């Protein structure tokens, strides 16, 4: 019996039972997955009805049970008309559910989420679940034309898109390079981009965690000022503007609206890319617990006064 137990353990460890299977790096470089999963069914009326029920009845309550969410800046959506491209920073698996459940219902119902094809669309059941719950469509991280084509079609059909232009979750909690895909899409379709600053999700559920950490950590979602592409604007320049707008939203979330616009005017908005320091220090800073939101005090506290002076 001991031999069987040992063998089962070897197989369970080797093939990561209960966890996502991994592909050796030398294989992943050689043969990126090219399986195609149709997601069109997930935008039909029955699936939309099911999604609304799941998002309202399960996802939103679960998110609010596990983390302490604050959504701000929803009024920014009054200044744009669908379809728009929502662009968010990405540090955690919480980001997509946070963004989706933060959207006003009318917007949420017409929004599709770009999800990594190699990660979320690797096996049929994960692909189906992701497509159903998030109205997800596969995004090839290698930059294949197929995903751009699909995204363009969705925009043309009037769907808003949620895109994480970093392409993957941040490894250290800070914002990485923005890929040009979202900017190109916006320019080609003349669609406004709404930046969404997600703060606190790295602390609540960092990369590698399968579930939010205990303690109902504070997380905030802030909709930033929409950015519209100029005609014939260079994707790279537009991409920079989107990133800057997201940085302002993040700054506003970290400080105050007044602070943030003053810094923006001075051109000193933190880029959100973190310290230029050793990796551990970046992670150290990014994982510093956020202050728990409380009721706003009626008069200035010493802490607030210090922050304002800084």
């Amino acid at each position, binding site marked *: 019996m001991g*031999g*069987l137990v040992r*063998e*089962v353990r*070897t*197989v369970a460890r*080797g*093939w990561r039972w209960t966890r996502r*299977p*991994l*592909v*050796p*790096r*030398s*294989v992943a470089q*050689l*043969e990126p997955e090219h399986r195609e999963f149709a997601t069109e069914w997930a935008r039909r009326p029955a699936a939309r009805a099911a999604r609304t029920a799941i998002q309202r009845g399960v996802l939103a309550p679960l998110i609010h049970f596990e983390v302490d969410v604050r959504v701000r800046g929803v009024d920014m959506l009054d200044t744009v008309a669908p379809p728009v491209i929502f662009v968010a920073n990405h540090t955690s698996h919480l980001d997509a559910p946070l963004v989706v459940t933060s959207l006003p219902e009318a917007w949420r119902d017409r929004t599709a989420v770009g999800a990594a094809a190699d990660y979320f669309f690797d096996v049929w059941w994960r692909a189906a679940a992701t497509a159903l719950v998030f109205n997800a469509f596969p995004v090839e991280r290698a930059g294949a034309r197929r995903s751009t084509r699909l995204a363009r079609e969705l925009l043309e059909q009037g769907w808003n898109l949620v895109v994480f232009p970093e392409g993957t979750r941040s490894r250290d909690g800070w914002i990485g390079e923005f890929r040009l895909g979202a900017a190109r899409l916006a320019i080609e379709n003349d669609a406004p981009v709404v930046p969404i600053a997600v703060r606190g999700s790295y602390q609540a559920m960092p990369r590698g965690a399968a579930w939010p950490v205990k303690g109902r950590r504070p997380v905030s979602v802030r909709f930033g000022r929409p950015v519209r592409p100029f005609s014939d604007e260079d994707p790279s320049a537009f991409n920079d503007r989107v990133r800057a707008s997201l940085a302002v939203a993040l700054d506003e979330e970290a400080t105050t609206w007044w602070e943030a616009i003053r810094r923006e005017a001075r051109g000193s908005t933190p880029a959100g890319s973190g310290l230029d320091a050793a990796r551990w220090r970046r992670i150290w800073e990014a994982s510093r617990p956020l202050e728990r939101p409380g009721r706003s005090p009626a008069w200035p506290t010493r802490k607030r006064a210090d922050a304002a002076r800084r």
Partner: protein
Amino acid sequence: MTRPGFVLEVDERTPPLLFHHGEGFRLEKLPLGTRVVYPPEALPGLRDVDGAIGRALEEPRGSEPLRALLRPGMKLTIAVDDISLPLPPMRAPDIRGRVIEQVLEQAARSGVDDVRITMANSLHRRMTAKEIEHAVGERVFRSFWPEALGNHDAEDRANLVEIGSTDQGEVVEINRRAAESDLVVYVNINLVAMDGGHKSVPVGLGSYRSLRHHHNVHTMLRSRSYMDPSASALHDSTTRMGRLLANHLKIFTIETTLNNDTFPKPFDFLQKREWEWSVADQAAYLAAKRATDRAPAELNRKVFHRIKAPYGVTGVTAGETEAVHEVTLANVHRQQLVEVDGQADVLVAGVPYVSPYNVNSILNPILVTCLGLGYFFNMYRGKPLVRPGGVMIMFHPVRREFHSVHHPSYIDFFEEVLAETTDPAAIEAKFEEQFATDPWYVHLYRNSYAYHGVHPFYMWYWAAHAMDHLGDVIFVGGDRRTVARLGFRTASTLGDALDMASETVGSSPRITAMRCPPLMLAEVR
């Protein structure tokens, strides 16, 4: 689409990798950075195999169509590759039978009456009636067995003919019936690059007198490797003999190639890349591992030797031997070649349950040596996978087990010859003649189902190049006394074996492992 072979670099994401271990297998966690050579996936088989055979016979290379070579009153001999091919045996219908049926169809239409079908078993054991029936098909078997269908007898002096000698003095002696036929049709299965071409008739229908010119230590040490005919003294010799034969005899060669679809369900996990194992594959592995660990070796052997491979046929080519073999080799390479950068210090391989010489039998210690150091080591073009003075580590239990009917001379070779020396050249000089001409072994070869008395010597010579090249050979999980008799060392685990190897290659060796079978041929640059 078929994915090509490739070289995996083991990292922390890599699951344990599967190695054959005799009539079983094992999962091994290889050191990080180890390179593992994977064969290409199975090429798609031909959809219309019978159509392909028909076309090959109608449009042969370098020859008239078969139909034009057939006439009433002629003597036709069909020689067929024996039990040693393919490995594991092919699921019915065997491609040889399908080819023979079409040849006979044409012969019947042309009014040929005098037909003889001979299994080209050379010095291998005779095939049983059942084995022959599986190879040639029921229809052929029923029509010809036993009068006009049987094994070649390389010790039947009355039925051997000396055709002549090559310019190098190599005697060419073959089966009399074939030599006196108006046409010899040779039907082959070209499983590896060593097979086929001019090796078919001179060796398959040859005798000890003829074979000793190339089945010797001198030739094997100059065959680098014998899986690369262009760099093989063995093939140079058989080509000289084959060309001589072709001047005396009309030979119409039909060669076939198979894909890498080696293991049927539920053993198909053996040919899948481990990180792609489904839950069902993992369960199949666990069940098979548990069963093989618990069951006696005898039972395991029975189960494994029942495996019939679901091969697809990738090519059928007919015509003049050399013109045909050129296409055949290209087909074999298409299925098996993998490019590998540079040599390693240590080569790791799992030795499976079957070699060409123990189908329905036991892989005895000498055959283990032949399969590991002969076949697997030589699965290269260019340079060996392991550097000169490197170490080869193999997984196999290497039990002191012999099949007393099939391998009687092996028992004496192990007990008497290897007890004295393991040096191939010394063995050849002192013992070969005695074993080759021993009347009892000759009797058993002719009348029982025994391999020829000289056969264990050839197996040992097959490993001579590897023995000469390597600094050390270690068997993981091998029986200590048996392996010591072979002149090698044993280790309990791969870790121990690598520790032992460090005495020869240092403490941080470059390691390459072969994920074989399914078969591969490494193109080492």
